[in-house]
């Protein structure tokens, strides 16, 4: 739930999602869910000529299971807060 909460704070940020099929999509994070499925708006595909099928797509829903990385803006992250939350979470677990 922790990373889900992190993503909730990042809505309306521009992120780049790298998928397991090597597709890289940059877009505005609009929504996330408990499975870390991602909804991106105003997408821009890196190496768009290698993926011509994406040309007419502006918004997309990405299934969480196919994400390899999500690149976030460093300015949007409060790493101290994240560290504290992580320690608290692990402390709660039995």
């Amino acid at each position: 739930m922790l990373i889900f909460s992190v993503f909730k704070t990042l809505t309306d940020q521009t992120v780049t999602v790298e998928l397991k099929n090597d597709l890289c999509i940059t877009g505005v994070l609009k929504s996330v869910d408990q499975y870390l499925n991602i909804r991106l708006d105003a997408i821009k595909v890196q190496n768009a000529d290698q993926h011509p099928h994406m040309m007419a797509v502006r918004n997309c829903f990405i299934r969480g299971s196919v994400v390899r990385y999500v690149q976030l803006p460093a300015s949007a992250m409060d790493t101290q807060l994240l560290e504290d939350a992580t320690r608290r979470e692990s402390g709660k677990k039995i």
Partner: protein
Amino acid sequence: MESLIPFTTSGALVDCVDKKVLVVLRDGRKLIGVLRSYDQFANLVLENTFERKHLARYYADQGIGVMIIRGENVVLLGEIDLDAEDEVPLEQVPLEQLDPAYKREAEFRKKRETDKSQVLFEGLGFSKEGGEGDGY
């Protein structure tokens, strides 16, 4: 999209219902159709579906009707902008023309992916995709 969308799969997908969408599957297929229904696993129901096969600047369509797609095979679902679609610089050709070259290209790509994942598995300890427990 200004309203607060609840952070659920439903909230992310409800706007796409009855819209023309592109679904990319894990095996590399691209299906285009009208999204009629979905559930929390991203299982999808598409109507008037066709598979679009791309090769360089050309593409060909193959109609396949109504599809229920199991969510674990879905990579992404993209809402197709109907205005942008008209401006895409690709040329449509009949399926019979494209198919042989497309099949060769697809086999080549599949072999390269298999070889690549084998090397990553043996040499670098990457796990293989598509195994048990991968889907949800």
